[in-house]
Every structure is written in C-alpha cells, then in structure tokens.
C-alpha cells in the first residue's frame, strides 16, 4: 500500500538523499490541498495530523502515517466520499483519509489510547524534531504549529473527553522528551488534538520562561554555548558559580593575610578612581554648559547666578568659544561623590535654573 502511494512520486522526484522526505512532503501537500479544498468541515485532528506529518519528514513517519491509514480503513467503511482526486495515485490515500475522517473520534481515540504508539511516536518526534532543527527554521514552524494548535484548541471540545485519559500518559512520555526540546512538546500536543489546554498552556508558558532565562544564563556563563541541552548547561552554570565562590573565598583569605598592610593608599586609590570617572563626566557637561552659557550671553542678558549648592566650585572665566580647551580643571574639588549627582539632576531642569543651581561661578 505504501509502495503504491509512493511509487509515482518517486519517479517524479529525483533528489538523492531527501528522496523519501520530499516525496512524503509532496504527497501530504497534495492530500492536504485536496482534503482542505473539498471538505469544509475537515476535522481539525486530521488537518493537524497532515500538517504535522508535513512538517516532520522522516521515513519512520511514513510508516506511522500508513499505520494511521490502515487503522482508519479498519474502523470505518472506505468508500470514496466524493473526494474525487485528480491524481490516480492519490486515490488510495484519499479514500483512506476520508474514511479516517468519517470516524475521527473513534480512530483517534483508539490510536491514542495505544500508549506504545504514543511512545514510539514521541520518540520519533524527538528524532524528527532534531532533524528539523538542523534543517529548517524553528521559529516559523513553531509559530505555524502554535497557530494551528491555537485555532484547534478553540475549535473542538469533544476530543477532550476521549483523549484526556491518554493525554496524561502521553504527556508524561512527552515530558521527558520535551524537557530538552520544546518543539517536540508542541508537536505532541498538536498531534493528539489536545483540548485540555489550560494545563499544557500554562506548562508551555512556564517552559518558555525557563528556556528564556536559560538562554540569558548561557550568554553570561562562559563556555556554556558549546554545551547543548539543559542538563549540560546547568552543570556548567553550577560549576561556574562554585568556582566564583571559591575564588571569592580564596581572595578574602588572602586579604585577611595581607590585612596588616592595608593602608590608606588603597582608600585613596579607589577614591581617586571614582573621582577621575566623575571628573570626566563633569568635564563634558561643563564644556557644554560653557558653550550654551556663552550662546545665551550673546543673545540675552545673563541671569543672576545664585550659587545655591556650593558642592562644586569652579571658577570659569567667560572666554571665547575657541578657548574652551583651556578650562582650568585643577580647581575642581569634589567633596563627595553623592553630591555630584544632585547637581546633575538639577541640571536637567529649565534653562534658568540650570545656570542658577549649578553653582558655577562665572565671571564676566
């Protein structure tokens, strides 16, 4: 049966290594087009299955697909439901799919309650999604599948009763596989036509959050990008945190040993470092202020400068613009670093107050 389905396409497609996959894809596309076009109330489960199969190309998938078809034909009569296929080769599969469609609930239920099937399929999914990941773009597929599942979730409620029992088992089986590969989880869900979605939705959201955070951690922890899988990454992170902590311990011990030599020099050092940074930033601001101040001086009367905050004392004579480089910085005296931030905040206010509260003493 499978060969009958496949042989004509085999002739048409001549790709080397993707023979089976492309063939299957084409096959499914044809089926899907016909099924979709000719039946308005195409059961969502069937659509999902077809789309699911379309997106997962594998030889094993073919066998499962054929299995579905066989089951479908077993359970229901296999008349041609008027899905007059244009392709002769499609006859068999279309009719099978149609019969499959006729008794969707039963066949799905029976198949799904077959837990072995689920496990094999979930394991196949894992492999398939691995293959997928390397070949196609994840995001697009995810969106597509999500869109399908979203629409399907709203669509049906009858499936929920039948598949609730099986959902748990397959969810558990999928959980192990999908912990590492989220795509896998989504696929499984769509395949079953799951309608108890509150749990799976919440879980999916949770997993997405966790994976987002893991990605962020991956960027932080060096050497984490080479390791794949959450377990390896977690290992790396644990090791890194441990190494950092031991480093801190070691350094603190060293400090304790050297404590006697800890003198004021260090204090001056870090204070000086702070100062230089702050000085640099203030420089920029001062330059800009001088420029603006001179501009304003040219156009308006100079406002009265009230030195309200004496924390920064700078004597800046009013000089032409081209002499700004000669601003005398040695006069800058920073008493406290916190006080620098207060004036900088006030500098963002209006123009007058900017000049007033900066406590720059301009001589003109």
């Amino acid at each position, binding site marked *: 049966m499978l060969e009958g389905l496949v042989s004509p396409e085999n002739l048409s497609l001549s790709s080397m290594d993707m023979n089976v996959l492309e063939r299957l894809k084409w096959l499914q596309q044809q089926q899907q087009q016909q099924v979709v076009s000719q039946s308005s109330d195409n059961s969502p489960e069937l659509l999902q299955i077809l789309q699911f199969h379309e997106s997962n190309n594998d030889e094993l998938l073919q066998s499962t697909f054929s299995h579905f078809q066989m089951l479908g034909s077993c359970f229901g009569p296999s008349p041609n439901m008027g899905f007059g296929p244009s392709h002769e080769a499609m006859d068999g599969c279309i009719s099978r799919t149609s019969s499959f469609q006729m008794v969707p609930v039963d066949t799905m239920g029976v198949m799904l309650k077959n837990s072995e099937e689920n496990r094999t399929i979930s394991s196949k999914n894992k492999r398939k999604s691995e293959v997928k990941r390397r070949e196609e773009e994840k995001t697009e597929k995810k969106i597509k599948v999500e869109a399908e599942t979203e629409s399907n979730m709203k669509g049906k409620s009858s499936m929920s009763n039948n598949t609730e029992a099986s959902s748990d088992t397959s969810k558990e089986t999928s*959980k*192990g596989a999908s*912990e590492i590969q989220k795509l896998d989880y989504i696929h499984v869900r769509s395949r079953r036509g799951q309608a108890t979605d509150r749990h799976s939705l919440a879980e999916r959201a949770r997993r997405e959050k*966790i994976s987002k*955070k*893991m990605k962020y*951690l991956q960027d*932080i*922890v060096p050497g984490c990008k080479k390791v794949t899988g*959450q*377990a390896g990454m*977690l*290992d790396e*992170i*644990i*090791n*890194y*945190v*441990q190494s*950092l*902590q*031991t*480093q*801190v*311990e070691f*350094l*603190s*011990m*060293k*400090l*304790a*040993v*050297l*404590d*006697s*030599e*800890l*003198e004021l020099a*260090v*204090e001056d*050092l*870090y204070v000086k470092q*702070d100062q230089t940074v702050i000085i640099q*930033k203030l420089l*920029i*601001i001062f330059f*800009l202020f001088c*420029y*603006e101040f001179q*501009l*304003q001086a040219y*156009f308006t009367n100079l406002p009265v400068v009230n030195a309200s905050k004496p924390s920064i004392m700078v004597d800046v004579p009013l000089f032409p613009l081209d002499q700004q480089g000669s601003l005398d910085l040695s006069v800058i005296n920073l008493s406290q*670093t916190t006080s620098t*931030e207060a004036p*900088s*905040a006030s*500098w*963002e206010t209006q*123009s007058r107050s*900017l000049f007033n509260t900066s406590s720059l003493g301009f001589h003109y």
Partner: protein
Amino acid sequence: MERQIINKKKRVFSVEPNKIPPSEVFTRKYTRLLVPALKKLNMNKNSSQANQLTVKHEVDMALALSAQEFAWSRFLLQKLSSSNNPTTTTSSSSNGIRIQKRSGKEGGDEDGEIEEKMRELQKLLPGGEEMNVEEMLGEIGNYIKCLELQTIALKSIVEDTT
C-alpha cells in the same frame, strides 16, 4: 530660533545624566563598603583564624549591601545577621563531591536529573531554596554578575596591597 537651539542643547544635556552602568554602581558601592570595613578590622586584629572569618563576613556583607535590589541579597543579609560564623559560600570539599556525582549518574530520568541540578543550583544561591525555579534562574543570573564584579574588586584590592 536661538531659544530652539538652546532647547536643543538642553535636550543633549539631559541625555548625559545619571546613566552610570549598574556594574560600575555595584563595584563602587562594594569597594566603598569593603575597604573601610577592612581597615576597621585591621585596627582590631585578633587571631588569624578569627580574622579570616571576619574578613569573609565583611566580604559577604559588602556583597549583600551593594546589591540590594536583588532578592538573594536579602537572604544573604539575613544569613549574615543571624549567624556569627556564616558559611554563605560552599566549602570546597563539597564541590568535588558534587562534580563527581554528576559524572557518575549517566542514565536515569532526564527530568529528574535536571530537577536535581536545579536544586543544587538553588543551594548555591543564597535564599535559592525559598524561591521557585523561574525566579531562581533569574536571580542566579545577576548573582553571577555580582560575584564576577566582586572577584574583580577583591583582586584589585589584593593587588594594591601586595
């Protein structure tokens, strides 16, 4: 027109503002806290063993105080204030054991393994065990950052004294 120019300039000014990168903020706070504490410790010098512990204490205290926007710092502070001899960071002996255990357990449930690792991670983070997994993952991120900055600061302090 001139007003516009001036206003435009003002806009340029306001871009400048208090945008100090948080890592700088942390490092500055940390050093500013730690060094005076160390100096004070230096004044009252006890036996070397006790000294080490107190230095450790100060180090951790400085870490907790300079990163107060994070949840784990609160837990760290609690731990520090509650106990006299805090063991906030893991001792090196248990590290080896943990790493060996990881390599030993190959098969088993993937899910369980990952959860176990999460739990280990939670143990590393101060207060991690009281958080749930997602929260913990986020906190670990900035805990790592702060640890890195702390090591840099400590290294520079040590280098200055030698």
